């Protein structure tokens, strides 16, 4: 009886995990091998037709480039902007630190659709930035900042920033204040302390933060879809369109597997690299 207790307690959770995670992921793998027969119909099979079509289509490569490009840009921007916040939170002894830490991470718990609405307000044709530019006479007509790549990059950068901040904070463990103080005492100006001590010591944290940013941007869906206004095509938006608009499930499943394996590849490359650096 005693040996059965852990099992009894775990069984419902494991069953739920199988139903909403294991079986769905396995089903993606299975249906990717079906053959699509157009207009929503598909034939049960074990065939690579779908993958063949997928890789023969130049659009797939364009989407891959777009996704990679977007993730590269957003991860880099997010890391760049998140770095000062994380460094500040790591060092500050202000009594407002808890509040400032919450402010940095709280956007995580604001729905992605809400954040898109926020960016529409800031970036729209009559939004904050265009109103400012127009009233300053810097432009004659509103600059299109949404329904294009610009809007997607800005919105997505902001939406992955909290995760990047958290990873940076987690990785800053090796950053020792006394080493910086030693460099300063020995006569290094602040910028030099930063470039020669702080930055090199925080490189592992930067790498981790950037990677998290990349992986999340690569699979992001809501920002590219809504801020792109139907003009921005990445793997994630295409997976959704294939499943819901074209109702071509084998194609959607195959593309999801393809996107997922690209993500895993990036993660694997990162693990190998960090091992090599650590060794």
């Amino acid at each position, binding site marked *: 009886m005693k040996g059965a207790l852990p099992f009894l307690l775990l069984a419902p959770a494991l069953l739920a995990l199988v139903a909403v995670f294991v079986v769905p992921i396995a089903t993606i793998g299975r249906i990717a091998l079906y053959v699509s027969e157009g207009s929503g119909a598909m034939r049960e099979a074990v065939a690579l037709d779908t993958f063949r079509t997928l890789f023969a289509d130049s659009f797939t490569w364009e989407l891959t480039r777009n996704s990679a490009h977007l993730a590269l840009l957003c991860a880099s921007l997010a890391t760049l902007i998140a770095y000062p916040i994380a460094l500040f939170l790591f060092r500050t002894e202000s009594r407002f630190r808890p509040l400032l830490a919450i402010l940095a991470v709280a956007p995580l718990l*604001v729905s992605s659709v809400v954040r898109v*609405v926020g960016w*529409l307000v800031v970036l729209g044709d009559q939004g904050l930035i265009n109103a400012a530019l127009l009233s300053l006479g810097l432009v004659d007509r509103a600059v299109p900042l949404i329904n294009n790549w610009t809007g997607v990059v800005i919105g997505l950068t902001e939406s992955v920033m909290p995760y990047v901040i958290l990873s940076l904070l987690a990785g800053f463990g090796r950053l020792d204040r006394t080493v910086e103080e030693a460099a300063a005492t020995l006569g290094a100006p602040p910028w030099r302390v930063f470039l020669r001590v702080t930055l090199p010591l925080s490189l592992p944290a930067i790498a981790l933060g950037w990677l998290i940013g990349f992986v999340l941007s690569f699979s992001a869906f*809501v920002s590219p879809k809504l801020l792109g206004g139907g003009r921005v095509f990445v793997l994630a938006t295409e997976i959704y369109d294939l499943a819901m608009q074209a109702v071509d499930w084998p194609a959607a499943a195959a593309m999801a597997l393809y996107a997922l394996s690209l993500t895993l590849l990036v993660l694997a490359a990162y693990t190998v690299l960090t091992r090599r650096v650590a060794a």
Partner: protein
Amino acid sequence: MIFRALVIAAYGFLLAPAIFVVAIAFSSDRFLTFPPPGLSLRWFATLFEHEQMMAAMQRSAILAAIVTTLSLAIGVPAAYAIARLRFPGRGAIFAALTAPLLLPTLVVGLGILLVFFPYGLAGTWPGLALAHLAVTLPLVVRIMTTAFATLPPDLEDAAATLGATPLKVAFRITLPLALPGLIAAAALSFLISFDEVVISLFIVGPRLSTLPVEMYRYVEGHTDPMVAALAVVLILLSISVVLLVERLVGFTRTVSK
């Protein structure tokens, strides 16, 4: 000095959407115009009279309550077993139960559609509630495993020594002690279900749609301050949950990937 300016600018960028959406929600104008020509509450009134949105909000609240109850009922015993009992494969089971957090929700959503649709579960209450478990259950298991693991075992031992049955120990000692974690887990799982959009987009039906999905579709079609007013309502909900969780178990510790 330069550093301070950079920090403030970075915060400005991060919080800009939330700050300005609040400003525009109180606009008297018909468009998202900056600066608002006047202040008014008309868009909040419009929102509260918008039957479709209000019905969706009610559905989402009911759904989130169901999902939270289910996640706690399933997740808390599992977390207890992982944190307190000794059995082989504990680490692996914990990793498996929290694994869905690592995969893109888009892929999880697609998988759930492919499985649920043939069984007629798409666009139904049970279907939506089950689907949301994919994101809330791993979170509950993670929070509660930490909560149970950090409890001092002495009190439970004492109660057991004094003759309490294991069930009594669990309900009279362990659960009350873990109450802060429980409330935090419940609040987070409610919010995550209430806000969930990607998985829901795959499996909502024409007659059963959630608030985030309705909002997503509204934004696709048009932008007016009503959707900003809705955003403000949702931001207020998020802030309350964040503050509650911070009070109980520490927010940044709980949400890190």
